[in-house]
């Protein structure tokens, strides 16, 4: 096969001055919106959609894609620096990344995030170039039963995310799932737990909850004692990861890349699972799992790589089948239709310059991002020394703007404030918030797939195990569950979880 020829064609398209410029603009914009809490890539792409009217199709897609993966990059910056994940996937980065920042190792965390993302992005680009077509068939093998089992596996694996009590982590997952139930029931169209509040018909906003329980709650926590204020860590040791850091991160980056590349192909939520899955794997494989949650660099390197790889390979189902994995990609499908290109199997053959140009530009964009982000680390880290009386109101203001911009809905601001308090209370009571977010994101997805599977099978639960792929995933879940429960039975649970209480 003339892969080289295709990549050359792509290179020709991607390095034309115009496309190179818009690739840079997209990556830069993406980094910026990723850094600003809440102002997500979806809002940005929606705003820029009309501008793409006048561009060549490949130029517009190159820019929009740049915003998308640039935001994935940028989103981890605030997660690490101020415990403010802009989206669900960077919540995982916050667990160890923020702890590293508190220890004065923000530079190392940001550096490894950038390097890991770049390596993962480069490999994922090659994966798309090589395997786009065969992987399309894999995506179609996943129906409701398979997705349900996959998410169940993800949820069980995610118990490993907790570094405290397993019971509390489980309670948080279930609480998150309950919050996810608010809204309109997909099957019947009835409202659930909305208590007559019209704004709740579409459920609680993920960004409002994430920014509330992480960012706002963290500010509350810092306000309570003037002496122990932590945001604005003064001691910063080294802006770059050390040689030891790089050695420790090499394998997690490689594993994260593989996990992300594979899961990213599943449009029904695979990319979202990637960072969670990678974190669980790293913790499981670590010689000393007790370091996780206390600033383990593997806990940043793996999930960041997985996240970026997943973001890249999720272009496979979008370009080849027109199946968007998230809101940003749905907008890109919209941008393609504006240009008169219907995403579908014919894109590769009919528009090779677009397909291959986009793929090569993704690699160039990743290179630009790493060149852009490494020098910025110094600036970001210095930002932490801004006095708190400027930094805190600033964070609150940006969070509020960001949350409001998602749907121009005032109610989301009340949600933000309420979950700031909820998050603060939970932190005080020793509950962790990542499992809550995970339950909130995955719970409704799991419900949708389970109920879809049940309608398809007319209510026969055996459907979940008669589908071979689903059965295999369920078996893996059962195996993992045994593995998790075993140490607690033999009183050696501390090998998996740190005993805190």
């Amino acid at each position: 096969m003339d892969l080289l020829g295709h990549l050359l064609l792509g290179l020709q398209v991607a390095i034309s001055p115009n496309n190179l410029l818009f690739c840079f603009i997209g990556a830069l914009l993406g980094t910026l919106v990723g850094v600003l809490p809440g102002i997500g890539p979806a809002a940005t792409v929606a705003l820029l959609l009309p501008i793409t009217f006048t561009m060549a199709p490949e130029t517009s897609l190159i820019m929009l894609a740049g915003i998308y993966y640039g935001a994935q990059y940028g989103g981890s910056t605030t997660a690490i620096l101020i415990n403010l994940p802009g989206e669900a996937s960077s919540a995982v980065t916050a667990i160890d990344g923020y702890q590293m920042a508190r220890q004065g190792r923000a530079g190392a965390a940001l550096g490894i995030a950038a390097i890991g993302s770049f390596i993962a992005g480069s490999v994922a680009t090659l994966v798309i170039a090589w395997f786009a077509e065969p992987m399309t068939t894999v995506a179609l093998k996943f129906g409701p039963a398979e997705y349900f089992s996959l998410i169940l596996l993800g949820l069980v694996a995610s118990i490993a995310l907790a570094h405290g009590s397993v019971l509390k982590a489980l309670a948080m997952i279930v609480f998150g799932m309950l919050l996810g139930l608010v809204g309109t029931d997909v099957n019947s169209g009835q409202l659930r737990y909305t208590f007559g509040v019209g704004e709740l018909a579409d459920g609680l906003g993920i960004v409002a909850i994430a920014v509330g329980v992480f960012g706002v709650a963290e500010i509350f926590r810092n306000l309570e004692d003037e002496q122990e204020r932590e945001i604005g860590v003064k001691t910063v040791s080294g802006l770059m990861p050390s040689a030891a850091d790089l050695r420790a991160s090499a394998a997690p980056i490689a594993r994260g890349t593989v996990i992300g590349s594979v899961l990213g192909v599943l449009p029904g939520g695979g990319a979202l699972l990637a960072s969670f899955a990678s974190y669980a794997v790293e913790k499981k494989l670590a010689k000393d799992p007790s370091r996780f949650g206390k600033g383990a660099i593997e806990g940043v390197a793996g999930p960041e790589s997985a996240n970026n790889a997943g973001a890249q390979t999720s272009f496979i189902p979008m370009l080849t089948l027109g199946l968007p994995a998230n809101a940003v990609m749905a907008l890109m499908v919209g941008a393609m239709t504006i240009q008169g290109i219907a995403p579908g199997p014919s894109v590769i053959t009919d528009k090779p310059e677009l397909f291959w140009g986009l793929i090569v530009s993704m690699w160039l964009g990743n290179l630009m991002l790493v060149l852009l982000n490494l020098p910025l680390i110094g600036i970001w880290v210095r930002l932490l020394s801004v006095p708190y009386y400027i930094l805190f109101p600033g964070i609150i203001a940006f969070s509020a703007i960001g949350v409001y911009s998602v749907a121009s809905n005032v109610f989301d601001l009340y949600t933000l404030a309420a979950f700031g308090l909820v998050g603060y209370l939970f932190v005080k009571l020793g509950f962790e918030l990542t499992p809550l977010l995970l339950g909130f994101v995955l719970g409704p997805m799991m419900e949708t797939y389970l109920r879809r599977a049940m309608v398809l099978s007319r209510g026969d639960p055996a459907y979940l195990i008669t589908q071979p792929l689903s059965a295999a995933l369920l078996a893996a879940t059962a195996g993992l569950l045994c593995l998790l429960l075993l140490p607690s039975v033999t009183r050696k649970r501390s090998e998996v979880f740190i005993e805190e209480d």
Partner: protein
Amino acid sequence: MLKTILAATSGLVLAMIAGSASAQSWPDRQIRMIIPFPPGGQQEVASRILVEKLSAELGQPIIIDSRPGADGNVGTEAVAKSAPDGNTWLGSSVPFTTQVALHPKSLRYSPTKDFVPVATFGTTTFMFTVPAELPVKDLKEFIAYIKAQKGKASYAGSGRGSVVHLATEKFKQSAGLEMEMIPYAGQPPAISDLLAGRVQFMALGSVFAAPLVKAGKLKALAVMDTRRNAELPDVPTVVEAGYPDLALKSFFGIHVPKGTPEAVIQRINAAVNKAIVMPDVAERFAKSNVDAAEPNTPQQYGALIEQQIALWAGIVKAAGIETD
């Protein structure tokens, strides 16, 4: 001095009497067109093409504001509550006419009492599609096939009460079929299960269907229109296939809040009618599978809305899917 004060006061009083808009000076500021669905959809794409021309014609920028939520009711309610000064428009489409029947009690606006029609500017069609490996060649064979399945077959709907759901219910009623609806959040997420053959049928928007049918991944059995689709001229219409009452075209138009000055409505209507006959508009519409509408009056669009409300009410009643 006294004169100026008098003039100012009388001007103020007049403005209060006439409402906040003065038809002569309109449009004097930016116009907002609220589309009550997530961005990136066909309606938004077509609306953006249209407002580019309208903005040039009316001399004011027009921004498209995507306000999704509750099947379009969040954005629609927002327009119903805004000032009737011609500066806030609603991008109206089929769901605008189905909600009354679906939520007779809880709906907080009336499409006919709180809004006035301005014009319709485009239409789009749906196609009856089935997985490529389903052993049927045409609609007749498909109906026989589904009947032989005795209730085991399923079809994909893009959410309960969506056009795709209601149109298929109508098809089931007309052909006497038994198929269970599997709900999805919008059309694209449903396509994967349709391609894989987990569901046997979907009334899929032509914009999504055409590339997949051309690539042989899906089979198109009929187009829900009185005319064949330009992109897939081999696919018969539902009229040819013997189901003329399934020619349920989807339309896009503009509504404004009740109380908007008549002169303003006429100006928008004239601008729309001027834009939709422009060849480049038709050409760009066609790229996203939208047909430009024939020039029409507010009354004609209003009549279409009334007819659609009655049509969907009948389908909802017969299928028993009211949710209040």
